[in-house]
């Protein structure tokens, strides 16, 4: 049995056999290693070391060296290191005392955080957590900053967290209104104006981004009034989409084989890696990284690079064989450019043949009601 806790003696003297015979009657001895006739080392249990020491001296032997080893010895030795114990006690007391105090103020929300923080620092009459009145601080902040619609103050750990939400003023209160703007190119087919100033007429060709109705009205005396523009305008719009077929095309696909290289990074330095030579001549790489530990003391980051083998093939195809697929793809591309509220009136496509490629252009005409 391997004993981890022991006290080792290195002794010098003659007639050691007689000494060991006497010693073995009272104590358990192990690893007796006699280097020469006068020198010897042996181990005893930690609890026996003082008695064995006195026995060695009584038998006229000289102790050359002695030391203890093992986890139990290290544990008890720790309690005799008064400097470390004192430091731990002082740190614990300091940590305990400062845990009652606020050390940091954090302001969250869409506001001037420095201004709020400065206000709190000036108005916070104590830094002790149990003496801070969060409710009165909330009231004080709401009164002082008029644009705050919501204020919450809470003590989290040793941080005073202030959560602020600013009030959103509706545009009507600012007396500013957004104009009705066209989102598509098209032709104006019908207009039903309710309020505002009309900027287009029936039959006008309009462009994307053009103002249709402005939120202003000028009275007979030339005064300008702001109001919300309201109208129902029917536009005839069109959208285009295309897809191109190549007679010869290079397509890269994954073969299914992959190799993973994992590395552990600490403060930007690679700590460990199982890096090996990538055997693929052509590959794609995906990289993932995540923290290895949940503490901030040693922020180890585990990085995983996955190498996928790829192959490139030249694909030759005839347009006529895949014509319908490309027409449908062009239509889908066209529909993506169209509003989901539009009512389709007409649709057509044309095929343009080029050098080594064929392009399908799809056009949809639709009506759209803007209000």
């Amino acid at each position, binding site marked *: 049995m391997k004993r981890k806790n022991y006290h080792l003696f290195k002794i010098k003297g003659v007639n*050691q*056999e007689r000494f*060991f*015979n006497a010693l*073995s*009657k009272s104590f*358990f*001895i*192990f*690893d*007796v*290693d*006699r*280097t020469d*006739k006068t020198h*010897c080392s*042996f181990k005893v249990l930690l609890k026996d070391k003082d008695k064995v020491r006195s026995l060695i001296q009584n038998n006229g032997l000289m102790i050359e060296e002695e030391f203890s080893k093992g986890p139990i010895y290290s544990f008890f030795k720790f309690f005799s290191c008064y400097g470390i114990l004192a430091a731990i006690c002082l740190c614990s007391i300091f940590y305990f005392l400062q845990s009652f105090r606020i050390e940091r103020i954090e302001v969250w929300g869409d506001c001037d955080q420095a201004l709020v923080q400065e206000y709190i620092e000036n108005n916070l009459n104590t830094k002790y957590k149990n003496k801070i009145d969060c409710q009165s601080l909330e009231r004080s902040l709401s009164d002082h900053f008029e644009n705050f619609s919501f204020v919450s103050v809470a003590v989290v750990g040793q941080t005073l967290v202030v959560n602020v939400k600013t009030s959103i003023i509706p545009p009507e209160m600012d007396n500013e209104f957004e104009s009705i703007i066209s989102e598509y190119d098209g032709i104006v087919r019908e207009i039903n104006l309710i309020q505002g100033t009309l900027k287009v007429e029936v039959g006008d060709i309009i462009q994307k981004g053009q103002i249709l109705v402005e939120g202003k009205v000028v009275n007979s005396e030339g005064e300008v009034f702001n109001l919300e523009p309201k109208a129902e305008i029917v536009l005839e719009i069109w959208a285009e989409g295309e897809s191109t077929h190549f007679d010869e095309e290079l397509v890269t696909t994954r073969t299914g084989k992959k190799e993973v290289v994992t590395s552990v990074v600490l403060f930007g330095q690679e700590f460990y890696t199982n890096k090996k030579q990538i055997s693929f001549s052509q590959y794609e790489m995906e990289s993932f990284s995540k923290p290895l530990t949940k503490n901030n003391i040693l922020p180890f980051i585990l990085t995983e690079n996955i190498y996928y083998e790829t192959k490139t093939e030249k694909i030759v195809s005839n347009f006529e064989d895949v014509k319908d697929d490309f027409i449908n793809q062009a239509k889908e591309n066209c529909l993506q450019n169209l509003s989901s509220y539009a009512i389709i009136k007409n649709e057509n496509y044309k095929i343009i043949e080029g050098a080594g490629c064929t392009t399908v252009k799809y056009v949809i005409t639709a009506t759209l009601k803007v209000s």
Partner: protein
Amino acid sequence: MFNFFSELKKIVEKEKLIEKYNIINMSGKILYVEGHKGICQLSKEIITFKVKGGIIFVEGQNMILNELSETTLKIVGDIKRVEAM
């Protein structure tokens, strides 16, 4: 618990003859002894110890006395020869 020596003693008629000492040599690497009466010589090459009715002579290389108590001992090393005298 099964005790090899006790079981062995049961099947031998003259028990008193084998109550002196027990020695087990394990592959020439470990020698376990029960019933020793004290060490006579101790070195890396030769270890001798008394038993009831004689002396046991152990010869080998790099031998150490791995365990020593009042009645048992264990020698570890390259054990070449064990002789009862």
